């Protein structure tokens, strides 16, 4: 394949194609998971039925699945947007943490009327996440530091400063308890909490945030000049440079958006479910975002689909305990499907074999 046709393929891929490989990978992983359960002597059909029930069986289950799906989608979008600009954002975890702590801090510190409070806190958390991500973009553009390295460092800096200083120090909830670190931060005001949408379920307004983010990213990347330029900078920086595009500015913009999206994911957990920054909070959602983006083929809509799928899988995996399988099974399937996605040629060979078998 010549480089010109690669560039063309990257910029103008047919709309169905990005979904084909992820769907194949996910279903292959599910089949493999089913077989593995069966081989370990567990009741696999019963296990899958329980998984479906715990993912979708009740209002409560749907709520849990959607919370997970919304956060995973936002973290996935963060990685996807950066990917589109040719940046590998391993820093979603740190940006997520920065967004979460900003939401927890301002949600408790500010006391504004209901709709305004939520808007201000949301804006501030997204700005904080964007600023955190911009450090990596600046280091990349101005100092030539690879973003994979800088975002990893920024993850650890954010994590340690937030969890080992802010949460146990200045922002800690006042408590007579010696185990202060378990208490987390001061709870946020009711006006800063995301409104619940259905009675009897934790489904909240966060799902609307996630949907808006998906549509925004899709419109931006596929329907605007700025989005096209971001894609070009990612697919062929040399061409973009030669065409006089502002490469550095697009890099900053993409990374800022990536940081804001991951921060929004952190805000969802704090204002939606936890209502504070809890003392023990090690979610790994930022790293899951990498998996979501990869399985989603680094397109906004694919990312949303992958986020929903992994959200269902996470929530459903709780049901597996009833047939004696650990919930970490969901993470295992997630890893396997990413690994399958990484090798599309493997599928190409499989398809060829299947087609050949049918022809004879």
């Amino acid at each position, binding site marked *: 394949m010549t480089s010109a046709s690669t560039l063309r393929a990257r910029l103008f891929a047919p709309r169905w194609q990005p979904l084909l490989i992820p769907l194949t990978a996910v279903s292959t992983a599910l089949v493999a998971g089913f077989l593995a359960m069966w081989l370990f002597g567990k009741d696999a059909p019963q296990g899958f039925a329980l998984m479906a029930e715990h993912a979708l069986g009740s209002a409560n289950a749907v709520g849990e699945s959607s919370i997970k799906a919304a956060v995973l989608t936002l973290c996935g979008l963060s990685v996807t947007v950066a990917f589109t600009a040719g940046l590998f954002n391993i820093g979603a975890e740190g940006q997520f943490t920065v967004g979460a702590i900003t939401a927890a801090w301002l949600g408790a510190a500010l006391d504004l009327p209901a709709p305004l409070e939520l808007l201000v806190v949301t804006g501030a958390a997204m700005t904080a996440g964007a600023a955190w991500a911009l450090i990596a973009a600046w280091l990349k553009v101005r100092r030539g*530091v*690879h973003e994979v390295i*800088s975002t990893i460092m920024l993850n650890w800096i954010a994590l340690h400063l937030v969890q080992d*200083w802010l949460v146990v120090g200045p922002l800690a909830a006042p408590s007579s308890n010696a185990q202060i670190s378990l208490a987390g931060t001061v709870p946020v005001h009711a006006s800063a909490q995301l409104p619940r949408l259905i009675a009897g379920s934790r489904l909240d307004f966060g799902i609307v945030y996630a949907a808006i983010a998906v549509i925004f990213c899709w419109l931006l990347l596929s329907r605007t000049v700025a989005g096209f330029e971001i894609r070009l900078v990612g697919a062929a920086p040399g061409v973009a440079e030669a065409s006089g595009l502002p490469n550095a500015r697009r890099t900053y913009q993409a990374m800022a958006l990536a940081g804001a999206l991951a921060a929004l994911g952190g805000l969802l957990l704090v204002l939606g479910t936890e209502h504070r920054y809890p003392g023990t909070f090690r979610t790994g959602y930022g790293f899951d975002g990498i998996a979501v983006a990869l399985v989603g083929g680094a397109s906004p809509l694919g990312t949303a689909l992958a986020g929903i799928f992994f959200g269902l899988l996470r929530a459903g995996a709780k049901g597996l305990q009833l047939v004696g399988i650990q919930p970490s099974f969901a993470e295992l399937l997630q890893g*396997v499907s990413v690994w399958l996605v*990484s090798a599309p040629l493997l599928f190409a060979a499989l398809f060829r074999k299947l087609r050949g078998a049918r022809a004879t």
Partner: protein
Amino acid sequence: MIATEILSAVIDFAPPLVLAALGGVLSEKAGVINLGLEGMMRFGAFFAAAGAIWTGNAWLGLGCGLLAGAIAGAAHAYASLRWRADQVVSGVALNLVALGLVTFLLEALFGSSATMPSAAPSLPHWAGHTPIAFVSLVIPFVLHWFLTATVTGLRVRAIGEHPRAAATAGISVLRLRALCVIVAGALAGLGGSALSLSILDRFENRMPAGAGFMALAAMVFGKWTPLGAFAAALFFAFADALQRQLSLATHANDLHLAGFFLALPYVLTLLLLGGFVGRATPPAANGVPYEEA
């Protein structure tokens, strides 16, 4: 007094970073990006501790950890060389598989989601340090000699810089690349074993807690050379030991300031990378899939 304590801590805590960083150097010198170091270390750490428990012998446990890393390396080589997978994606996927699979195995085989029981047999201590500590002080020089003074080492560098030219000279690019990635996995696996058999006496589910990524940073910091990566890994271990000492000396925990000290090594690394090291050049064909003509 404090100086000797810090030196001793560096010798104890550096091996996982040193070994994994050298694995990264070997793999990327041969032209295969290796973001899977974290996962390879995790497999190594788990199977080293499990092997020591199962066989009742710490040395055999070490062998298990090394082998597990090598198998993880082989998986990365298979996906990225045989199927020309995106090497970055394959490496990240390996990390995710390691995260899920090891947690799953820990729960299934040891009935805990947090930690394994302490491995009964432990490695011998020579002058207060385990053999892994001494080995990881020697291997960087061996790898340096291998890459600069042997014919095979020259070939490794050739397939990472210009695989087509190397193939024209009669080198089997894919086979040599696979070998390098597998040995890189073994090194990372050994580094992981150092976590669960040398630094601690058991496997904990949070391992390697980012050590694989720090090893990558050491590799870049060291400009893709064995001795450079070695020095960078030692620097990270030194910053970490210094951070512990400072934190203790200032009673940071009581003042809830431990976070500043914990973040210090990473801040230092960013400052150094951004300020002094300048642009580092990876091997020219790093990450470019090779198709046999």
